[in-house]
């Protein structure tokens, strides 16, 4: 009989968690409770003595100073309703895992297979609540029905002797492992049924390619020799579906696109990826010549560039949108720890140095009914923020840069971008560390976590829109500690030369990781029955494609195998020999000695047919709104500062450790009160050197509604502008693109596919044009192409969004520049030209308008400005520098002033323009490539000399009086506000979140 250990706070101890839950129930659901208290429950299902359980309850499970524990009896009292929330069977339970280890240390004995500890939480609600309200509280706030279940008891229903009935969420596997075969010798309609029912996400053409493959007599003969029939096994079909998924094969970016532009010119683009992304990098590297700093691009889990002679930088950004829509916490946590494996699993392995995160949400204050299956944006916000918090903080990786973009269309799918950078020695044991190669005969070794049913069909699921049948098993929960232990182990194994290659197990599980590694040698022999399982009852195909987290696959040479496994054991990391890499030409899987998959490597990796996608660019008929000149620009500015896309994100930033590793030189929050918005992060990865790396990003989906070409150009410029603002070297910087699109393939479901595909083409064209013009190579990237919600007649598509992340170098971090003004009397310069470019701006959005004049970028012009800025920074001439983006000059002036704690007096007549502009346009236009700089007056001549002949306008000065005072073109004072008031307007909206 399992034990239940309940742990609660002693009388009189403040229950901070309960108080927070009470406050959030009020905010989320509008339900006012008198009090909420919490209890932790451990359900222990193992061969133990009563004494051992009591020792655990009063030892590791209970803090004797503030807590008390009860075994097999309730602690709950003085409540109206009790809600106990626990995990469903098979869901990762990190606390349960730690609790189990704690008991093992205590007793000195290991748990047997099938034994475990399961955790749950009791919430004791007091106040006017009935069971129906409690059901709402449980289902809409405390728990996520996909991964958790709950029990609700009224006070008189709780058994005073035994407490809440015991419920052990053990996975009971009954199914004997079997391998089914599937006949593809069927009608087209049936082929599609097979794909749909099996969650394979393969289209008819792809299914027919499989049909033809098995029907080929030559294939059939070889299969027979292996004991297989002409029908594909479920293992084979699943392996093919994973490998051919949009998620893994990027079929849209590899497609042929039949593109017609607005002038009727038709062009056949053979792969957007090859043409524009790989193409741009090749061109940039050619132009860089000897200065080329790229080391490994596109081919590995992350891109690698040179940091200095001895060290290389690794960078990758991923998205985890679909899982985060279903389970925001688990989805986001898995997103960050997943991208961490990409960083570590690059080349021969790297050490993580920082994370970045960018989220796109609908307003957390959204106040209208949501379509079925969508979680309220507020829950998404909370869950995602907490997931990334746990993933980053617990892994000891500082989160140094990020942002949150709001648009109500992100209610359909939130975007969760998680980035990570790592550092590796330039050379390892005499060879470049960024290179790796599996050798024939190497053992396939899987390390880290065990395999369960979690994450089955994650890759195919994220290749679809969110729909009614989106599977619960697609959700996983990460385990940062198991992963951390694995990374510690792998670093030592790397330095001892114990393996030849490694990669992470992400989407598609072993099927992808081993499938890809096997390309080095041309085959593998993988024994699925040897894989360690979380619980029995997994089918062979499930073992192959499960995306259970915290796993890496390695190629270990036979003579190093014993040493590798021994080291793993000592460091308490699971490592299992699953077979060998071969040169058979086949992806060969066995289960208990029987062949269950025998697939031609060439067919597996190259067989997927190339899609042909029609695209037609028809610009929308848009016009400028012709707003009346506002009466009071103080009010306009203050309202803009309080808009979600501009306001302070401090409440989120402070929840992320942005300083662990002691390398963060320019932090996300800067200025006199440590609360101003930094443009970019400067990080010193080597504690004994002042060389630094700089990271920033650009993202501007609002411009996509006008033209994705300029959206892309602006995102690139914004990323680079932020980067140079803090001192990043514009001649040593790489880019990384993350496309998040709505489905661009013309179909019944997507009648506007041609337009969306054209938007995709245009964004790619800009990506090529501007990366080449700026001399910025792309080193890696990712696309997520099905960010739509469709249930019934309701379809929500996200605005086309590209996150453009940049990473580069600063020679000496002591030359880095922050955005806050430094002292009264300093001169304020505006670099760049202001144009009538309010299209897609925050100012227009505040007035419910879109407009037409989207900002455009002149890369040559911008590059010259950025190079000069770098020169001024190196000479120590720049006291502060802040980029102009959302909200334009008005917002930048305000932010710069209140961050520095001084006023600014500025005059709009000095602003450089191409044609005379209205005052509100001057203040709020979002023209690109502009920066606001402050300079000590004694350096004026030197500074102006650097910018001689450019658009460098002295527009004002820093003042002692704490006011932002802006004079208009007619000499009238337009803005005169106290900086405290402006700061208050900027901080208020998200302060409590």
């Amino acid at each position, binding site marked *: 009989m399992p034990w239940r250990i309940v742990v609660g706070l002693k009388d009189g101890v403040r229950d901070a968690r309960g108080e927070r839950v009470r406050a959030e129930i009020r905010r989320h659901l509008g339900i006012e409770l008198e009090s909420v208290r919490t209890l932790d429950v451990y359900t222990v299902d193992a061969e133990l003595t009563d004494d051992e359980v009591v020792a655990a309850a009063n030892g590791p499970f209970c803090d004797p100073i503030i807590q008390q524990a009860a075994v097999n009896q309730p602690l709950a009292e003085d409540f109206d309703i009790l809600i106990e929330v626990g995990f469903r069977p098979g869901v990762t339970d990190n606390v349960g895992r730690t609790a189990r280890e704690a008991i093992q*240390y205590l007793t000195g004995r290991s748990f047997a297979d099938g034994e475990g500890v399961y955790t749950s939480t009791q919430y004791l609600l007091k106040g006017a609540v009935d069971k129906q309200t409690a059901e709402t509280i449980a289902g809409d706030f405390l728990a996520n029905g996909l991964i958790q279940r709950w029990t609700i008891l009224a006070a008189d229903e709780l058994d005073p002797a035994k407490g809440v009935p015991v419920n052990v969420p053990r996975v009971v596997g009954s199914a004997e492992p079997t391998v089914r075969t599937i006949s593809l010798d069927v009608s087209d309609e049936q082929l599609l049924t097979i794909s749909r029912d099996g969650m394979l996400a393969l289209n008819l053409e792809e299914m027919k390619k499989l049909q033809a493959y098995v029907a080929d007599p030559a294939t059939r003969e070889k299969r027979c020799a292996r004991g297989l029939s002409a029908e594909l096994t479920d293992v084979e079909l699943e392996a093919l579906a994973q490998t051919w998924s949009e998620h893994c094969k990027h079929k849209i970016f590899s497609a042929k696109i039949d593109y017609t532009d607005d002038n009727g010119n038709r062009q056949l683009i053979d792969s957007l990826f090859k043409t524009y992304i790989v193409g741009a990098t090749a061109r940039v590297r050619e132009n860089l010549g000897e200065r080329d700093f790229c080391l490994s691009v596109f081919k590995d889990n992350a891109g690698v560039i040179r940091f200095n002679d001895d060290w290389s930088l690794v960078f990758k950004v991923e998205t985890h949108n679909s899982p985060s829509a279903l389970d925001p916490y688990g989805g986001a946590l898995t997103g960050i720890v997943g991208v961490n494996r990409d960083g570590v699993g690059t080349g021969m392995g790297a050490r993580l140095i920082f994370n970045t995160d960018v989220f796109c949400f609908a307003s957390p204050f959204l106040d209208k009914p949501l379509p079925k299956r969508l979680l309220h944006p507020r829950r998404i916000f909370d869950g995602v923020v907490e997931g990334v918090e746990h993933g980053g903080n*617990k892994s000891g990786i500082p989160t140094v840069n990020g942002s949150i973009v709001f648009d109500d269309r992100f209610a359909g799918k939130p975007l969760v971008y998680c980035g990570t950078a790592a550092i590796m020695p330039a050379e390892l044991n005499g060879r470049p560390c960024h290179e790796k190669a599996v050798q024939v005969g190497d053992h396939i070794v899987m390390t880290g976590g065990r395999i369960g049913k979690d994450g089955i069909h994650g890759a195919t699921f994220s290749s679809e829109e969110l729909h009614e049948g989106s599977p619960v098993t697609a959700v996983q929960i990460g385990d940062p500690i198991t992963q951390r232990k694995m990374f510690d182990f792998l670093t030592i194994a790397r330095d001892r030369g114990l393996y030849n290659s490694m990669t992470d197990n992400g989407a598609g599980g072993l099927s992808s990781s081993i499938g890809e590694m096997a390309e080095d040698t041309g085959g593998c022999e993988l024994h699925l029955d040897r894989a360690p399982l979380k619980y029995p009852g997994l089918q062979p195909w499930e073992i192959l494609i499960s995306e259970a987290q915290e796993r890496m696959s390695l190629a270990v040479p036979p003579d190093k195998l014993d040493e590798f496994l021994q080291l793993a054991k*000592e460091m308490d990391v699971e490592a299992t020999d699953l077979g060998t890499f071969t040169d058979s030409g086949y992806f060969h899987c066995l289960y208990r000695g029987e062949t269950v998959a025998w697939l031609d490597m060439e067919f597996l990796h190259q067989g997927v047919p190339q899609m042909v996608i029609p695209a037609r660019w028809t610009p929308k008929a848009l016009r400028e709104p012709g707003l009346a000149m506002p009466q009071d620009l103080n009010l306009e500015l203050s309202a803009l500062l309080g808009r979600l896309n501009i306001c302070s994100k401090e409440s989120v930033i402070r929840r992320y450790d942005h300083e662990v590793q002691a390398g963060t030189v320019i932090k996300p929050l800067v200025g006199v009160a440590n609360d101003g918005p930094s443009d970019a992060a400067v990080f010193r990865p080597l504690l004994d050197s002042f060389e630094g790396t700089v990271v920033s990003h650009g993202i501007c989906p609002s411009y996509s509604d006008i033209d994705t070409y300029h959206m892309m150009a602006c995102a690139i410029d914004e990323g680079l502008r932020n980067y140079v603002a803090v001192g990043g070297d514009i001649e040593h910087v790489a880019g990384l693109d993350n496309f998040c699109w709505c489905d661009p393939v013309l179909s019944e479901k997507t009648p506007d596919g041609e337009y969306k595909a054209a938007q995709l083409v245009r964004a790619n064209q800009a990506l090529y044009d501007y990366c080449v013009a700026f001399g910025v190579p792309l080193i890696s990237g990712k696309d997520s192409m099905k960010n739509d919600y469709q249930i019934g007649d309701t379809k929500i598509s996200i605005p086309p969004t590209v996150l453009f992340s940049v990473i580069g170098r600063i020679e000496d971090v002591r030359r880095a520049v922050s955005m806050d003004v430094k002292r009264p009397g300093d001169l304020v310069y505006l670099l760049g030209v202001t144009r009538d470019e309010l299209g897609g701006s925050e100012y227009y959005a505040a007035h419910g308008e879109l407009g037409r004049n989207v900002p455009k970028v002149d890369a040559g012009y911008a590059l010259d400005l950025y190079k000069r800025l770098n020169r001024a920074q190196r000479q120590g001439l720049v006291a502060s520098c802040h980029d102009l983006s959302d909200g334009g000059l008005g917002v930048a002036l305000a932010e710069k002033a209140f961050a520095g704690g001084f006023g600014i007096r500025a005059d709009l007549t000095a602003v450089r323009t191409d044609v005379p502009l209205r005052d509100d346009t001057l203040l709020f236009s979002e023209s690109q490539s502009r920066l606001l700089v402050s300079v000590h007056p004694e350096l004026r001549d030197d500074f102006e000399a650097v910018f001689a002949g450019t658009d460098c306008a002295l527009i004002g000065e820093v003042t002692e009086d704490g006011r932002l005072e802006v004079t208009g073109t007619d000499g009238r004072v337009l803005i005169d506000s106290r900086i405290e008031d402006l700061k208050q307007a900027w901080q208020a909206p998200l302060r409590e979140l």
Partner: protein
Amino acid sequence: MAKEIRAIVIAGNGTNCEREVAHACRLAGAEVVDIVHIAELLAGRVRLDDFHFLNLAGGFLDGDDLGSAKAGANRLLHARVADSEEHLADQLQRFVADGKLVMGVCNGFQLMVKMGLLPALDGNYQQQTATLTFNDGGRFEDRWTYLAVDPDSPCVYTRGLQGIYLPVRHGEGKFVPGDDALLERIESAHLVPLRYATADYQPTMTFPENPNGSVAAIAGVCDPSGRLFGLMPHPEAYVHRTHHPRWTREPELPEEGMGLWLYRNAVEFLRSEVV
């Protein structure tokens, strides 16, 4: 020839700050600074006895899954060193008895308190008498704090200091003594070398200067000998001026960060009194 100061930083199972702690020890003048994975200690290949200065670094031991550092404390108490009857905790008690130095930062402080190493009145280093629990705000916070120093504390690390400025980065940093009597005793014995304070170094209970609602604004605690010391703020995170959040606007900041002073004091103490 002067003997060398040997510092050890224990790593593994969720420690995160071992590299920067080791760096601080080196800058402070320790001749040998080893980052040692706990597996090495449990395998018996490295022994605490060979060091003078034990550093328990910040992080999330076992994810803080059972409460901060609880599972970690349980491991140290119960895990045996390979091929011996000794627990790691036995080596630790001997280390303390030998008059050596132990500093725990953040998760290391939580670990020391939960193992009973702090405040350790009456020579009892094995019984937990206080705790560190959830911040009053219920959330993890990364923020810089001013810390008032008690000049009368026996703490060897804070000797000669008046006030320091360091970041906190924790969700469970609220110090709670077992009872009022304990609080009275540690205060009267000056075992609270550091308190959260306002910018002019006056102890405060007001958020955010006191980031977690710690009782009596306690940010750090030492044992009566002053050799064992734990604190929630991170001294290793401020060893150079570029660590300071306002270094770009405060040109008068010295090159060396305030956190380094604690490590310098430790090394100086060892050189003059132990080694």
